[in-house]
């Protein structure tokens, strides 16, 4: 809607807060022994009986218009973003990532010889459900890549129409909850409770321990249930590492940039480490306040590893010496990420330096969509897409997710979570990100 209310904004915080932890890159071996995840192909779960459709379609099989959005020569996909509204600053312009991935695929012959087209809609202007309807009813797309903070509002519509949806998956619990089997994210569903428990990894805890944090302060936006959940889960996960909680503040105002009171509290409680589930502007304000108060606690942020910080000299001065979750690692990119960067630079030249969340999330989500189309058969239908992709137990995205193949089986259960997740961490030193810890692997833990 026009003036996006505060509460909806909380989803942005959750989204951004978990963006890095949810796009996990691990070097752990695949956790599902029943599949062999080779570097460049995927296999359906045993018993599905489908041929490996990553090759050209068998000669003689005619291509038909098998579903809405599918013609013998084209596939029409939809993309939802937030061009306006309060979430716009995080997601605006993100479609370049999707366009780059599609251009790369089309340059390689498309999918089964069909070229992919992309149509965009903005859920900030007309609302999430109307944006979904515009793409599905009006434009007749086959599936939707939804990179916005409000997917949850459109989810029932997508589910009722069995529309395949891919996204970054952290605006709400629908990405891992029945009946939303049509929704696929490129990471485990961190915001879905299973039997009242939330699943997370203790890698962040291990990193904090490695930088000698013993008393941790954790702050989160008061209106964001998911940010608060993040904070609580983390505090449970650090306890076994010998890190105690010295200050937990869940009443930060969304977008707050003045933190004098909070800095005093951190100082008073003798904290030597802080972690925030907030957006960039709050990271900057908090770090500045700590520096001004002379507090020398080690600061870790889920957000902030982006070009916007590097481009703003005042912001990077304020964040100097702080630590950031740096996944995907764009500073020393592994081959799969380098391939993404190459594609972005070739097909989306407006993306310079570290791609924004919108850009790389849309690239990765589009990759999942393309994979779904490939396993759906020579003449895909929405149902064959959903059924077959749900049967894929390990998908590495042709190197994009090489460190942590995605698990699409076991929907609605904790089996969607790999047993470990490895992340990289960077420090901002004099205006440059330096990777200080690579592949810090955390075990899966259940928290309340």
């Amino acid at each position: 809607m026009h003036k996006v209310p505060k509460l909806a904004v909380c989803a942005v915080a959750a989204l951004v807060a978990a963006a890095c932890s949810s796009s996990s890159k691990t070097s752990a071996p695949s956790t599902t022994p029943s599949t062999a995840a080779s570097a460049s192909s995927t296999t359906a779960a045993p018993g599905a009986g489908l041929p490996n459709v990553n090759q050209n379609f068998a000669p003689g099989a005619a291509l038909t218009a098998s579903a809405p959005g599918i013609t013998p020569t084209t596939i029409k996909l939809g993309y939802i973003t937030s061009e306006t509204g309060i979430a716009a600053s995080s997601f605006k312009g993100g479609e370049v990532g999707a366009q780059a991935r599609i251009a790369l695929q089309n340059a390689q012959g498309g999918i089964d010889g069909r070229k992919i087209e992309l149509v965009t809609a903005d859920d900030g202007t007309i609302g999430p459900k109307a944006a979904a309807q515009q793409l599905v009813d009006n434009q007749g797309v086959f599936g939707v890549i939804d990179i916005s903070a409000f997917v949850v509002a459109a989810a029932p519509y997508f589910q009722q129409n069995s529309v395949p949806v891919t996204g970054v998956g952290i605006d709400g619990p629908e990405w891992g909850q029945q009946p939303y089997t049509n929704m696929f994210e490129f990471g485990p569903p961190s915001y879905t409770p299973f039997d009242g428990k939330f699943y997370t990894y203790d890698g962040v805890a291990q990193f904090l321990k490695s930088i000698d944090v013993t008393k941790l302060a954790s702050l989160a936006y008061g209106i964001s249930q998911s940010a608060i959940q993040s904070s609580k889960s983390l505090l449970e996960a650090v306890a076994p590492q010998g890190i105690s909680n010295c200050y937990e503040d869940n009443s930060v105002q969304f977008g707050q940039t003045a933190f004098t009171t909070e800095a005093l509290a951190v100082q008073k409680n003798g904290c030597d480490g802080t972690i925030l589930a907030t957006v960039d502007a709050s990271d900057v304000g908090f770090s500045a306040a700590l520096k001004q108060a002379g507090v020398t606690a080690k600061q870790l942020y889920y957000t902030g590893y982006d070009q916007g910080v590097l481009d703003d000299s005042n912001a990077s001065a304020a964040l100097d010496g702080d630590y950031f979750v740096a996944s995907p690692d764009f500073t020393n990119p592994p081959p799969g990420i380098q391939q993404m960067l190459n594609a972005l630079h070739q097909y989306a030249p407006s993306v310079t330096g570290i791609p924004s969340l919108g850009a790389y999330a849309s690239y990765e989500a589009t990759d999942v969509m393309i994979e779904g189309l490939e396993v759906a058969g020579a003449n895909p239908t929405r149902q064959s897409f959903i059924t077959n992709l749900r049967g894929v137990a390990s998908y590495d995205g042709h190197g994009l997710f090489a460190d942590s193949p995605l698990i699409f089986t076991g929907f609605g259960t904790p089996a969607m979570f790999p047993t470990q997740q490895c992340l990289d961490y960077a420090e901002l030193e004099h205006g440059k990100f330096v990777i200080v810890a690579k592949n810090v692997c955390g075990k899966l833990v259940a928290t309340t």
Partner: protein
Amino acid sequence: MLQFIIAGLVFGSLYAIAASGLVVTYLSAGILNFSFGATAFFVARLYYDLHTTHRMAIIPAVILSVGLAAPAIGLVLHLALFRYLRLATPVVKIVATVGVAVALPATANLIFGQRPILLAPGIAPRPLRVFRVFHVPVTMDQITVYICVVLMLAVGTVVLRHTDIGLRVRAMVDSPAMTSLSGTSPDRVAAAVWMASTFLAGLIGVVSAPIVGLDSNSFTLLMIAAFAAVIAARLRSLPVAVVVGVAMGIAGSVLQYILPPSSSFTQAVIPSIPFAVTTVFLLWNVARRGRGDDLRANGGVLDRAISYQREHASAPLGWGWAVPVVVVIGPLALVLSGFWVGLVTTGVALAIVFLSYTLLIGEGGMVWLCQATFAGVGALGAAQLATAHGWPLPLAILGAALIAAPMGIVLGLLSIRLGDVHLALVTLTFGLLMENLAFTRQTFTRLGSGVALARPSFAHSDRALAYVGLATFIVLALVIVNVRRSTTGLVLGAVRTSADAARTMGVSVVTSKVLTAGLAAFVAAVGGSFLALSAGAALPSQYSSLIGLVWLAVLVGTGIRSTVGALLAGLTFTLVPGFVQVYLPTWFAPVPTLLFGLGAIVVAKYPEGSLAMQIRQARSIAARLRPHAPVEEAPRPEMVVT
């Protein structure tokens, strides 16, 4: 603890400076300027563009943005809008400034783009100097704000109360006509006042941006919190506004020190401080004086006598226009395709909510700004009753509406003696309080997905739901028309014209107003349920008071006194952005918001709204086209000289 008090000065000074800007504007212009925060944001954004993006030095950037651009905005607003508001009704005054508050950020987005701004430098030179006061860091940016607060307090009080200029300005607010008799040009004074007001807003914006963050939402929230200090100051005492603003900031900081920071109680209490302050001061004001008075800013008798008055069209527009409109809209849902039908369905649901505004503001003359909250109560209540407790849907909707109605009645009783501006602020405060305290409960938010509200089997498709909604709308509209023609409606009409005169006739003002409030809350709740049905779930975030302000702006722009206007406004609100989305390029996206803001501004010139204006124009054209009939003149009353 002392340290936390000093730390509390940071936010306290921001509240104080915003509140004093609002009070100075109100004292000088007689209008509570809802767009103050938006103006501050716009000028601050311009300063950022000049200073940070284009690397202009601080002093030239300040001169250009605060010294030139800000007063220019004030002049433009005066010429285009504010000079028509002098004799306008309170709802028009509020809506017009809300329109500006909506249009300005949209304009800023169009001009400057919407990239997030991580750090907005103020006018203090970088690198920032930091001082220590009792071991509490105090930055130069914060000191700038403190200096501005003191300056505003001193200059504002001295100028307004002790100088000739201040006297003329305050005289203008009371009666421009009388002031002009003393040789002062009202138009020039008014223009100067608005230029000074926007200059202040710009200055406040530029010095606040480093602390509060440079985005329009933060400025809006700051302004709304400052309303509490404005109410405490009874809308006219600058020192009280400053003191209460500072106290609120300190209270927030001290509470953070005292209360356990991780508890959900603290989460709820800290953002609610301004609203608690509002409630306390309001009740105190009312108890002490019996009335919450506004300034008499409508001018005196002489003003009304000598100024051009638009012909008062208090009669409704007649049924002739309702029928063709419904006949045209009716088949819409049959003709259009899925996406557009979905928008029509939502538009019809909104129209039902708008009916509550029509009833409350159009008929009752009561400017309530919390109807979106009642819609939320209806939606959340219906979802809880139907989904969590298994009630059949019609009963659930009715039940939720019956929960909202008493809330309306109680609020009506509590606010019965308030002047219009006070009433608007109080209801807005109530709405925001509900949002912060009640709507954020997990029971309703369910981690962001809300509670599902399933459609009944007979209204499963968007099309069917649109027709059910339309039928409900017609039933409720007929109820409202009935109220209009009933004794209650006549009483409300009398009260609208002159509350004092109505009271002397022995008419029961209280009963009529309170019943109207209850009925309006009921109608809003039903509309909220339909919005939830249209969306498929009751999401608390879709019923925020700030969205409600935009709804009001659109409705008043179309016509607040017309039930058909409510339907058209609802459809406009959903269809126009849909049209822009589908047929216009992406960068047009902020345009619908801008248009809605501008539409609300047009209300200043055409208080009845665009629908009524167009119908009257159509009528006058039709009258001219009719063959000439002999015109009978009414016999002139003769002056009988005895």
